[in-house]
C-alpha cells in the first residue's frame, strides 16, 4: 500500500517532519554507555607519555567478537595469518587504515573514548608507539600478557617495546639490518669470501663494476633509519642524546655518512629517488635494482633481499651475512620489531592477549615466514627464546642455516631509541645529508650540523 501511495508535496512534508523529529530526538538522546570495562578518560592535563596513558580496565566483558586489525603488509607477507583468523572462533580480523604508518583513525577514536578494534598488529616501536602512548590510545600489555610469554621475549626486544617498564608493544616480527649479495654476480667478479668490513664491501663493489659482473656494486636504502642509523651503529651505538634523539653530529654518524657517499658512488644514479609506495618510503630504487639483478651487494633489513630475490631467475643465488664492521667499530646494526598494541578503548583485552599468544607461537606462521610461500618470503623472525631453543633441540627440516646468521645479529644489534621524532627525525634530516651524498656540499660536518638544526627547529615548533 505504501508503495502505491502517491508521493506529493504534502506526503513528502509529513514524512520529512516525522523523520526530522526522529533525528532530533535521536540527537538529543544521551550517548551510548561506555563499553563495559572501558577505562576512565585519560587525564587531559597529563603531559608525559607515561602519565597520559589511562589505567587499563581490570576486566572486560565484551559484546562483540575479538577485533584485531592488521597493517596490510602483514597479511600480504604472511598469508597464513588471514587463513588462521578464519579458523579462530569469535575473531573478526580486518585490515587497518594505516597506510604510510598513519595512526589518525586510532587517535581519533581514542579521543571519542571508543575503538573499532581491540588490537592493532603492525606497530613499530620507534615509529608510532610514542605517539600512541601519548594520546592515551593504547595501554600496556602487562596486565594481560601471560608471565611465561613476557619472560620468553628476548631482553633487548623487551626493552625496545617498553616505556617506563611497561610493555606497550607485543613483539611479533623481527627485522634486522644486514648484508645480502647476489652470489652469481660476486662470483663473476671474483669475490670469493663474504664481506666482513666496509672496506671489503667497497673493494668488492668496485670489482663488480670493473668486471662488468653487474652495473652496480651495491645498493642500500638511503632513508636514515635504514642506512644512516645502522651504519652508525656499525661504528657505535652510543649515538643518542639524553632525550633520545639521534645525534647527527656524533663522529660515528659522520663516519656513516662518509661511507654512504662512497657506497652511493658505486650504486645506481637514482638511489636517492623516493619510493613508489607509502609516501615514498617503500618500493625504493634499491629494491628495484636488486630485484632486477643489477647490484652485487645489498644492505637493508633482511626481509627486503629475500623478497627481491624471489624475482630472480635463480633465487638460490642469494647469500646473506652479518652487517659489515668499521675497523675499530662496535660492529652493531639496527633491529626493530613489528608488534601489536592494545587499544585503551577496545574490548576483549584478555582475549586479545590469548589471540596474540596463539599467533606468536603458531608454527606455520614461522615456517612460512622463514621457508617462504608462493605468496612471499619475508624471513621475519620470532623474538621468543623458547622458539629458538626448540629449533636448536630439534631442527625442523625447513629451517635454513641463514636463520642463525640473522638471529646471530641480535646480541649486538640495537633498536633506534623511542622518541616522538623517532622516524621523523631522519626524514627531516634527509634533504641536508643528501646534499653531501649528491656532492652538492663537501663538508660532512656542515650537513650533519644542518640535520641536527633541522630536527631541533621542528622540536621547537612542536614544543
Amino acid at each position, binding site marked *: 500500500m505504501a508503495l502505491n501511495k502517491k508521493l506529493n508535496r504534502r506526503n513528502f512534508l509529513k514524512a520529512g517532519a516525522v523523520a526530522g523529529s526522529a533525528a532530533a530526538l535521536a540527537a538529543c538522546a544521551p550517548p551510548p554507555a561506555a563499553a563495559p570495562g572501558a577505562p576512565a578518560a585519560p587525564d587531559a*592535563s*597529563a603531559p608525559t607519555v607515561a602519565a597520559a596513558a589511562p589505567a587499563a580496565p581490570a576486566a572486560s566483558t565484551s559484546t562483540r567478537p575479538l577485533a584485531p586489525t592488521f597493517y596490510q603488509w602483514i597479511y600480504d607477507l604472511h598469508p597464513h595469518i588471514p587463513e588462521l583468523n578464519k579458523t579462530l572462533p569469535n575473531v573478526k580480523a580486518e585490515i587497518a587504515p594505516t597506510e604510510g604508518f598513519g595512526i589518525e583513525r586510532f*587517535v581519533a577514536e581514542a579521543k571519542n573514548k571508543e575503538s573499532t578494534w581491540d588490537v592493532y598488529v603492525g606497530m613499530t616501536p620507534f615509529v608510532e608507539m610514542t605517539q600512541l602512548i*601519548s594520546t*592515551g590510545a593504547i595501554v600496556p600489555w602487562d596486565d594481560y600478557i601471560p608471565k611465561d610469554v613476557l619472560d620468553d621475549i628476548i631482553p633487548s626486544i623487551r626493552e625496545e617495546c617498553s616505556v617506563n617498564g611497561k610493555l606497550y608493544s607485543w613483539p611479533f616480527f623481527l627485522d634486522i639490518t644486514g648484508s645480502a649479495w647476489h652470489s652469481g654476480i660476486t662470483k663473476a667478479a671474483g669475490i670469493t669470501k663474504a664481506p666482513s668490513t666496509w672496506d671489503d664491501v667497497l673493494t668488492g663493489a668496485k670489482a663488480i663494476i670493473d668486471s662488468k659482473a653487474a652495473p652496480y656494486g651495491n645498493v642500500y636504502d638511503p632513508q636514515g633509519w635504514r642506512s644512516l642509523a645502522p651504519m652508525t651503529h656499525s661504528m657505535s651505538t652510543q649515538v643518542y642524546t639524553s632525550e633520545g634523539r639521534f645525534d647527527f653530529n656524533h663522529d660515528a654518524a659522520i663516519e656513516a655518512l662518509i661511507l654512504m657517499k662512497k657506497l652511493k658512488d658505486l650504486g645506481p644514479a637514482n638511489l636517492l*629517488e*623516493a619510493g*613508489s609506495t607509502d609516501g615514498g618510503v617503500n618500493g625504493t630504487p634499491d629494491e628495484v635494482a636488486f630485484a*632486477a639483478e*643489477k647490484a652485487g651487494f645489498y644492505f637493508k633489513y633482511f626481509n627486503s633481499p629475500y623478497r627481491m630475490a624471489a624475482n630472480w631467475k635463480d633465487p638460490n643465488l642469494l647469500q646473506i651475512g652479518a652487517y659489515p664492521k668499521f675497523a675499530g667499530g662496535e660492529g652493531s646494526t639496527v633491529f626493530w620489531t613489528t608488534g601489536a598494541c592494545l587499544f585503551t578503548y577496545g574490548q576483549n583485552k584478555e582475549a586479545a592477549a590469548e589471540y596474540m599468544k596463539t599467533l606468536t607461537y603458531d608454527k606455520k606462521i614461522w615456517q612460512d615466514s622463514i621457508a617462504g610461500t608462493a605468496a612471499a618470503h619475508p624471513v621475519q623472525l620470532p623474538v621468543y627464546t623458547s622458539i629458538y631453543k626448540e629449533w636448536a633441540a630439534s631442527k625442523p627440516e625447513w629451517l635454513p642455516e641463514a636463520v642463525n646468521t640473522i638471529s646471530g645479529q641480535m646480541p649486538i644489534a640495537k633498536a633506534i631509541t623511542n622518541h616522538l621524532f623517532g622516524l621523523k627525525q631522519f626524514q627531516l634530516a634527509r634533504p641536508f645529508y643528501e646534499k653531501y651524498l649528491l656532492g652538492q656540499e663537501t663538508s660532512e660536518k656542515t650537513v650533519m650540523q644542518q640535520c641536527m638544526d633541522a630536527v631541533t627547529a621542528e622540536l621547537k615548533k612542536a614544543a
Partner: protein
Amino acid sequence: MAAISTRATRQSRLSASLQHWGNWVFLIPSAIFFLSYMIYPILRTLWLSFTDYRYLRQGPANFVGLQNFQYALSDPLVLIGLQRALQFTLVFLPGMIFLPLILAVMVDRVTVRGLATFYRVILLIPAVIPGPMIFVMWRLLYNYEIGPINYILVDVLGIFSKANAPQWVGNPSLVIPAVAVFEWWWGLGYHTMFFLAGLAAIPKDLYEAARIDGANEWQVFWRITIPRLRPIMAILVVLRFGTAMAVIDEYLLFGGFNRGLPTYTWTVYMYDLAFQIGDWLQGYAAAIGWLGAIGMLIITATLLYIFRNRDNN
C-alpha cells in the same frame, strides 16, 4: 468590506509564504550536506587556525589570535612551498588548456561519424581509469631502472647511457615536468570534451561567412574559434589553477616527504604538519591552509576578471 479584503490578502500572503517555505523543505537534504561537508569543515579549520591545537595533545586548544598566520608568513617552508606550487602551475596550466584545445579542433574536423565517436571514446579512457592505477602506471613508466621511457631512450634509441639516463622522479629539475606531463595525459580527454562541446555550439555559418570573406584557417581559428571558446577556457583556467596549486597526492607519490625536492610544496608541508610531525600541529597547519586558500582566491578573482565577458550585451 475593506477588513475582509485585508484579511483575504493576509491569508493569501500567508499561504504564499507557507508554499515558499515548503519549497525550502526540498532543499534540506542538500543544505544539510552543504553545511556539514562544506561549511562546517571550512569554519572548523578557520577556528583551528587561530588556536595552538595539536591533535596528539590531550589538553584543550588555546586561542592564539593571529600568531599562526604571523609565523606562517615568516616560515621559509611555507613561502618556498607556495613558490614551488606556483612553478608547477605555470608549467601545468598552459599544457592543460592548449593541448586539449588543439586536439578538440582536430577531432571536431573528423567528419566520419563512427571515427569521430571512436576518437572521443579513446580520449575518455584515461578519465575513467581509477587514480591508483594511473599512479602505478606512471611511476612504472618513469622508473629509472625498468621503465619503458628510459628503455626506449637508452636501449632502443641510444640517446642516453645507463650512467646518465634521465631520473624522471629523482632529478629535481625533471620531477615537476614529469608530474605535469602525467597530469596532462590524465586530463587530456576530459578537457578535450569541454572544448568539443564549445566547438559544437559555434554556429557553422560563422565559419562559412568568414571563408567567403577570404579568411584563411589560421584567421578562422584566431578570430572565431578562440573568442567563442573563451568562456570554456576561462572555466578550465580557473578550475585547473585551483587544482594545480592544491596538488598533493601526486607530489607525495613522486617525492614523498623529502623537503629538498620541488614536490614538497605548501600542501605537503601542511599535511606533514597536521599528520606527521611531532604531536601534529593542526592549528598551525590550518593557518597555512587558509593563507594558501586566500592567495588562491585572490588569483582566481583576478583570472575571472581577465576572462570576464567583454560583450556589450
